[in-house]
């Protein structure tokens, strides 16, 4: 079954008196448990597509069905509910709440999902254990390393058991070794049956995915399966 089904999507921004066509005409299907990388140089419409896929933004024209439900005309609040339940975000800059500890950060989406406190705490805790941060649950972001912060963010993305994980340059702010660890964590998550969409401009990061979609000037240039898929170092992931 298709989780994501996009047909002839376009996004036009009004910048002053000029119209900027961020996306021209993009059609795309993503199935359950796929591992897709979206690549493209800056200005290719990569971020716009990601915002669209993440239900942070709606298209100017075209159709977007998420799990068979049309989201292209949804209101802000309906989109918020979809993001809360179905999408887990992992950002380049982690985007954790600076004043809150790891546990509260992971708990946050569950608050907006209306889950009672004790259940929240339990689920947040086990999500942190899953990403190997059992000993760090009461640390605030500034007391954690970059890699650990990104793990907190991954735990936060996973805790609602979303339909897709949307990772936007997840290794962009990390050194290559830590980046590799994060990719290993994502690999493991994928192995457990999750659907992952990875946005990157690094070829070697994209090669972790099973399928690469290349964008250029608001159009899909190429959509191909990866032949020599990179295997992550699982030993490091567990570490």
């Amino acid at each position, binding site marked *: 079954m298709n989780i994501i089904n996009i047909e002839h999507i376009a996004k036009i921004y009004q910048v002053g008196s000029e119209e900027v066509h961020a996306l021209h005409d993009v059609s795309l299907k993503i199935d359950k448990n796929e591992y897709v990388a979206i690549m493209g140089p800056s200005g290719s419409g990569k971020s716009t597509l990601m915002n669209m896929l993440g239900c942070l933004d709606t298209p100017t024209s075209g159709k977007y069905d998420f799990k068979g439900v049309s989201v292209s005309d949804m209101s*802000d609040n309906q989109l918020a509910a979809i993001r809360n339940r179905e999408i887990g975000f992992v950002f380049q800059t982690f985007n954790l709440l600076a004043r809150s500890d790891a546990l509260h950060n992971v708990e*946050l989406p569950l608050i*907006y999902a209306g889950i009672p406190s004790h259940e929240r705490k339990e689920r947040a805790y086990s999500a942190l254990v899953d990403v190997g941060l059992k000993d760090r649950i009461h640390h605030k972001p500034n007391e954690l390393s970059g890699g650990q912060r990104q793990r907190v963010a991954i735990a936060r993305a996973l805790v609602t058991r979303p339909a897709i994980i949307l990772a936007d340059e997840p290794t962009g702010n990390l050194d290559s070794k830590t980046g590799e660890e994060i990719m290993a964590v994502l690999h493991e998550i994928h192995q457990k049956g999750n659907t992952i969409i990875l946005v990157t401009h690094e070829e070697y990061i994209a090669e972790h995915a099973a399928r690469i979609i290349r964008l250029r000037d608001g159009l899909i240039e190429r959509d191909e399966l990866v032949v020599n898929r990179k295997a992550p170092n699982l030993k490091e992931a567990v570490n």
Partner: protein
Amino acid sequence: MNNFLFELRESMVIALRAIKGNKVRSILTMLGIIIGIMAVVTMSTAIKGIDNSFQKGISSLGTDVLYVDKWAWYTNEEWWKMRNRKNLTIEEYEKFRELAKLPVASAPDTKTNQTVKYGDRRVEGVFIHGSTSEYIRTVNFDFSQGRFYSDIEGNSSRDVVVIGSEIAKNLFPRGDALDKTIKVGPVDFKVVGVLKEQGSFILGPWNPDNLVYIPIGAIFKHFSNEAWNTVTFNIRAPSPAMVAETKDEIEGVMRKVRGLTPGEEDDFSINQQEGLIDNYNKIVGVIQIAGLFITGLSLFVGAIGIMNIMFVSVKERTKEIGIRKAIGAKRRAILGQFLLESSTICLMGGFIGFLFAVLLSMMINQFIPTSIQYSAVVIAILISLITGILAGFAPAYTAAKMDPVEALRYE
């Protein structure tokens, strides 16, 4: 409903986290509300205190008492017209007393201004009232010591005196006034009674606490040169309901006493406390409005301060708002978070301000009476809550309708 309570509780937790996380800023914000609530509450306790004191004092003078006087107390009638009236005399009073049937009590009242002394203690410029023993039945006085002068003492113009509580406090700090001989002007008088405190500083010269009562004959005997030339008749109606009827009778009797023909105008005035009360209400009304307006203004400034800080806070936390929205916070949740933050700050500020107001009222109570109202607690809380919601709404709304993409990009 449960859902609403859940959201409320969660928003509250988030708001408290934010307040705790920015202690200095929260306290500075609170300051505006603390000062505002303190000012409003202190003002209202002072006004209420003054009012209570007035009501108490006015009732000690009796609300069913009419005063026949040369002067109209509260009127726009021309002054020279009243000035040309004949003075009321003690003889006219006696004639009046013969003829009037309705009054349950009546007494003449004339005044002089004297220094009162005991040993080397003195009070200057005291109003000395001269009356008959019936005077005590036209007022509602309680005695802390002794009694009012008797019929015999009154009729035979003995040199006896009844003093107000404030006078007694000044002359006899140890409270042993009874049977002592004091000097009223140059004359010796024996103290036969001390009034209980009537507690009404606002009545000024009417305040019984600062007065001295002697038989009217004693005034004529010792102070005929310094005494007021006119006598006031204090007349008590049988009941407050019969004040108007009594007034009609008084007018008829007085016209007879004065020998006025039907065409002639009254050459006397019949006064009531109503005039005093009306006047008082007007003055207090103005004080109340002006006072509450000015103190309300400080509260308003406090509210503007909160709105300012909340706007800054929203701007500063744009990224946080973006994160919250990205992971699924609805508009309502963001709105609630910021509204609760500002109303919590205001509630805390209101509570602290109220505590300060209570302390301040206690201090002011040394000089003018204050009265803390239980309803003021509720009102202070409500005002701070409403202030918080109003001041927080615009910033919270701005936060709630932020575009998540834009907000996430904000650095």
